[in-house]
């Protein structure tokens, strides 16, 4: 019997693939048979991810999303794809009193503008197949809960979720599905931002019913599901994966 979770024959584009959830997603998608184009700023770290991918024919696309023309360039470089995963993201911890235009714009640029506009161009240029799947790595932050000093990130992730729901409706005629994953804290370089001590993180971990943070692959497996035909009737959802954190 054919495995409905298989990604065999699918070409998938992943941003933020040089570390954390994006990297784990690339590794797990490759195991499920996908052909990958992985993207990030740092070529060497991207090559590290590439070396960990099973299967043949994967390639890297070095892209600095702070560059003005980057969206056009990336869209031009990409082949026809069956799925895209927006895993690139940034944050900066600042209490609300210290929010400023520059940081707000930087965070929204990477977390919201780029994934949205990149998806838009791919759709418009018809470089994304009918029945394709678009997955945004959103967050429980902003959507379900908030944490102190993280308002700009939370707002950007709410914006992503709102956009994804509307995209799901507008792209439904082409059977393109659009979904978000909302992870809790996942053990990646991203959470070690220098704003919190290890002691504070250890204390925070105890608030999770499952008593630990997530592993990147535990998010990646959900991405595999959302990219695969197993989720053919799933669109516009926000899948919370948080060790039970938001239940309490």
């Amino acid at each position, binding site marked *: 019997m054919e495995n409905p979770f298989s990604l065999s024959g699918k070409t998938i584009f992943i941003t933020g693939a040089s570390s954390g959830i994006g990297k784990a997603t690339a590794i797990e998608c490759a195991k499920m048979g996908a052909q990958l184009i992985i993207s990030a700023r740092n070529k060497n770290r991207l090559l590290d991810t590439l070396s960990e991918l099973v299967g043949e024919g994967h390639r890297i696309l070095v892209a600095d999303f702070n560059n003005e023309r980057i969206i056009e360039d990336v869209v031009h470089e990409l082949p026809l794809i069956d799925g895209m995963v927006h895993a690139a993201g940034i944050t900066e911890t600042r209490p609300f*009193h*210290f929010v400023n235009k520059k940081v707000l714009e930087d965070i929204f640029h990477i977390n919201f503008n780029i994934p949205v506009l990149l998806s838009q161009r791919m759709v418009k240029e018809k470089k994304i197949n009918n029945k394709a799947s678009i997955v945004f790595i959103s967050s429980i932050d902003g959507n379900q809960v908030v944490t*102190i*000093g993280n308002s700009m990130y939370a707002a950007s992730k709410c914006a992503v979720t709102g956009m994804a729901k509307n995209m799901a409706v507008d792209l439904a005629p082409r059977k393109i599905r659009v979904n978000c994953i909302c992870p809790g804290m996942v053990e990646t370089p991203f959470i070690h931002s*220098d704003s919190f001590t*290890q002691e*504070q993180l250890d204390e925070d971990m105890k608030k999770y019913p499952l008593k630990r943070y997530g592993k990147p692959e535990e998010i990646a497996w959900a991405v595999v599901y959302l990219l695969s035909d197993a989720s053919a009737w799933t669109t516009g959802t926000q899948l919370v994966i948080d060790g039970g954190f938001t239940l309490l």
Partner: protein
Amino acid sequence: MEEFIKKFASQFDETEIDIFKPETKFREIPEWSSLTGLCVMSMIYDDYKIRIKAEDMKKAQTIEELYNFIK
């Protein structure tokens, strides 16, 4: 130092201004919280262009020890 103390004090709303001295152990101020800590870190970054890591911040007990990071 005087200017730094003023900026440090402005992260507080209820604490009397004369509490803030170089030797003040700021974590013992009742109004101190982890949010105040993040405010102090943001203030130092914005006004002195120095990013203090939470692990380093933890080592400082007095306002003067904090000031030593930015001198």
